[in-house]
């Protein structure tokens, strides 16, 4: 029922759905038109049913005319003592969405905030993104797509509580009011907890009147995470902490080259390790074959793995190598690639040859590991006719569909219990469901021995660093012509980067004319520049994935450092220069407001900087939010010195300023990491060279700059903030350092020497 409904849903909602999946928004205009085309054809729809099927079965049958995502009973429970639990339809990886959605719901519910707590839903129909039709945490979409949904859920429940009280007291509902978890009227009062059971029997209102934002008491106020105490006292459980009765723990020995296969194995020593239950060959991602060591706990499993003697078969497996990759990418960038779709990328380049001034630049960005603090973990309880999975997944609907396929179970028999994540940054949103399917295969292999137990597969840090699914290694080549006033007359640009989405269920939505939208997002927009953009997508034997802010991790750096160079070469102030490239439309206005706020708060152009310190400016829109950074930085003893950092953000209406601040600060630090020495994944002869935090280092407290975050006031519908803070930080820093050294930085991590 729901499935048919979803598949026959109108183009508009599916359009919004797919637009929501887009982990980027810079090319929205062209993307929307593309989406309509692809949804109109079979290709667009063909992908969705598998996911829809896995998510389609719902806990509560939808009422006529209403969707599962609109059912209060699936989201809100109120205990007799008034304790109110609000279920989150996302995975929380530190962005605080479980608190933000609860705030939104509690506001319209008029709940007593002190009695509200939070929990997670599963992958099924109630908990899908109402716009996307799938449970996905990514693309900075959660607030954007669930703001109205959670307000309505709260308002519907409030109306049902009032209706129940009216019935109980034999009064007209209009004579009653609700506030702070209590319904009152006619001299009577009842707490929500006393009314909730009766309220659930009331019909769900088709439409509700939402509050005037001026009367908000919770939304928009700086609010602590509901799980702050749990996280400070160690009682918060994460995916890696799951423990089920009789559960075993497994580690997997994976081939050192992606796609390698097990040739021969001597497991005798491993099987002698106390606590080791089984050593089994297991099918892995990309056709690889490895070994699972299943034991009573992590340490015996690890000791068992260390004791295995084996040989790998790499026949027919391509061995990626950074030296060769760089040469290959450089060669590719000499020729035009696939034309990027969209009129903004099809400029006439005839003015380039005779331009008064020219700038030619190459940029190189490495593979990057997400390095979330909690290594990947997935617990699978596989039974003959059911499969329960416990993991912190950003796409449990996709994963459930893949599990159903891998196990031969029906989608209804798969249930994913979404867990709190110790960081994610995109690594837990895997279109191939790689680590979830691996854990499923381990459970299958164990079941094939005639035994059954829930098995938790735990990745070591080394496993996690070496597993692939990196931000793609990317090369940009720009040839720019401009006049003596700094006006750009022609910009010829090429990007060489593996496609993240080709071959994935998202290809139909986000790859157009062979060009992956996640490669080009963030190019050119919103500046009025005559640009010709083409893309090469080489096929390399290294799995790649979206990584916090995706394409904008490199496109923002390229755009914002090149524009800054041209401004400087033309004796233009970098702020004035950018302002001059922005249109007078709504989008341009949003950018101007953002940059202006950073200018005012930083004292840019007014404050005298210490000797050797320089201003660095950059701005970028991603996921429909605009962020500007103004950084004070210089170089001392060959190393960057960072002074005050000012960030400004336009995310429309801000739901929780307390967490928005941390998202911007955290994004900036993640961006700072990308500039720091050795923060790169490299391959030699097919083998990843890094393994842990000593050779893939991360910023420490001593690296943390003081970052002031300022939010542009707005009452427009809220947008996301999980990613947009990342892209503009590194170019702002690079621009300051270029002023200090006179040399542009065009490689990540930075090489200042």
């Amino acid at each position, binding site marked *: 029922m729901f499935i048919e409904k979803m598949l026959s849903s109108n183009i508009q909602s599916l359009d919004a759905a797919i637009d929501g999946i887009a982990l980027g928004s810079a090319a929205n205009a062209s993307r929307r038109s593309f989406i309509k085309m692809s949804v109109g054809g079979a290709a667009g729809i063909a992908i969705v049913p598998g996911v829809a099927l896995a998510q389609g079965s719902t806990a509560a049958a939808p009422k006529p005319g209403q969707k599962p995502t609109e059912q209060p009973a699936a989201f809100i429970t109120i205990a007799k003592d008034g304790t109110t639990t609000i279920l989150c339809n996302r995975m929380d990886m530190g962005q605080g969405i479980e608190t933000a959605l609860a705030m939104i719901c509690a506001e319209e519910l008029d709940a007593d905030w002190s009695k509200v707590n939070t929990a997670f839903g599963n992958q099924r129909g109630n908990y899908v993104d109402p716009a996307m039709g799938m449970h996905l945490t990514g693309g900075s979409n959660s607030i954007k797509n669930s703001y109205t949904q959670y307000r309505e859920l709260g308002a519907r429940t409030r109306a049902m509580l009032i209706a129940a009280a009216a019935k109980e007291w034999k009064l007209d509902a209009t004579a009653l009011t609700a506030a702070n978890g209590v319904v009152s009227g006619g001299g009577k009062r009842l707490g929500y907890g006393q009314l909730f059971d009766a309220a659930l029997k009331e019909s769900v209102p088709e439409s509700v009147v939402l509050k005037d934002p001026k009367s908000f008491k919770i939304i928009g106020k700086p609010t602590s995470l509901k799980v*702050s105490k749990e996280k400070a006292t160690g009682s918060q459980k994460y995916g890696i902490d799951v423990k089920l009765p009789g559960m075993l723990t497994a580690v997997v020995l994976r081939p050192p080259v992606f796609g390698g296969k097990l040739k021969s194995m001597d497991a005798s020593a491993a099987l002698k390790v106390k606590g080791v239950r089984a050593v089994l060959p297991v099918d892995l991602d990309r056709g690889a074959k490895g070994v699972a060591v299943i034991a009573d706990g992590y340490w015996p499993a690890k000791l068992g793995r260390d004791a295995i003697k084996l040989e790998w078969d790499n026949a027919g497996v391509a061995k990626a190598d950074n030296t060769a990759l760089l040469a290959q990418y450089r060669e590719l960038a000499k020729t035009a690639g696939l034309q990027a779709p969209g009129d903004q990328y099809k400029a006439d380049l005839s003015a380039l040859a005779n331009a008064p001034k020219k700038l030619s630049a190459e940029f190189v960005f490495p593979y990057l590991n997400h390095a*979330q*603090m909690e290594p990947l973990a997935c617990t699978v309880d596989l039974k003959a006719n059911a499969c329960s999975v416990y993991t912190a997944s950003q796409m449990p609907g996709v994963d459930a569909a893949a599990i159903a396929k891998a196990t031969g179970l029906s989608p209804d028999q798969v249930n994913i219990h979404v867990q709190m994540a110790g960081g994610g940054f995109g690594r837990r949103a895997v279109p191939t469901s790689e680590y979830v399917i691996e854990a499923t295969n381990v459970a299958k292999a164990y079941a094939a021995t005639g035994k059954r137990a829930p098995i938790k597969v735990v990745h070591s*840090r080394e496993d996690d660093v070496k597993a692939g699914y990196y931000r793609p290694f990317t090369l940009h080549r720009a040839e720019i012509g401009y006049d003596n006033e700094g006006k750009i007359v022609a910009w010829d640009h090429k990007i060489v980067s593996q496609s993240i989405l080709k071959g994935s269920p998202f290809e139909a939505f986000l790859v157009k004319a062979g060009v992956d939208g996640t490669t080009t997002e963030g190019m050119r927009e919103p500046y009025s520049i005559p640009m010709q953009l083409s893309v090469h997508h080489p096929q390399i034997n290294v799995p790649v994935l979206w990584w916090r802010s995706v394409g904008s991790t490199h496109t923002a750096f390229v755009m914002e450092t090149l524009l800054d160079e041209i401004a400087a070469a033309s004796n233009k102030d970098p702020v004035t220069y950018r302002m001059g490239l922005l249109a007078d439309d709504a989008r341009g206005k949003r950018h101007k407001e953002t940059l202006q706020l950073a200018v005012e708060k930083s004292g840019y152009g007014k404050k005298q900087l210490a000797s050797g310190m320089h201003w660095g400016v950059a701005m970028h829109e991603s996921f429909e939010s605009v962020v500007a950074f103004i950084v004070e930085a210089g170089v001392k003893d060959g190393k960057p010195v960072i002074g005050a950092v000012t960030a400004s953000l336009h995310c429309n209406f801000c739901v929780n300023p307390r967490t928005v601040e*941390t998202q911007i600060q955290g994004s900036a630090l993640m961006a700072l990491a990308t500039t720091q020495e050795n923060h790169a994944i490299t391959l030699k002869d097919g083998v990843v060279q890094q393994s*842990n935090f000593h050779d893939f280092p991360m910023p420490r407290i001593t690296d943390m700059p003081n970052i002031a975050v300022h939010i542009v006031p707005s009452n427009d519908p809220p947008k996301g903030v999980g990613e947009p803070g990342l892209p503009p930080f590194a170019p702002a820093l690079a621009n300051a350092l270029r002023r200090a050294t006179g040399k542009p930085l065009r490689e990540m991590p930075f090489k200042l020497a």
Partner: protein
Amino acid sequence: MIRFQVNGKPASVDADPSTPLLWALRDNLDMTGTKFSCGMALCGACTVHLDGQPIRSCSTPISAVAGKNITTIEGVNADRIGKAVQDAWVVNDVAQCGYCQSGQVMSATALLKRTKKPTDAEIDAAMAGNLCRCGTYTRVRAAIKAAATAIA
């Protein structure tokens, strides 16, 4: 069987003596508040106290803690300073994903036990071994200062 004290209570673990204290706590004693992240004493997520000193439990075999007193995130609130640090962590909204925060709290508590009113440089030195990928360091500093004020 290796015996030691955890949060003031006797504990015994029947495991290979090379087993890191981290895994004895997590798998044998069902205390998952102490976190695994690097396994090489590089990130501090697994920090516990051994006779009051901060150690990396991922790289400390249980053979080395026989007869010793271990304090973990689950028990650090029994100490006035540990409680003050946890309270400051909540008030200052330090955690984002929170995965590293058990270790951060244990390192901060050890710092304040040694140095009642740490300077910025002392905070940096004491906390530099604790990685946070979410970038909570600004609030880590603020919370340590708040806890220092609370215990003064």
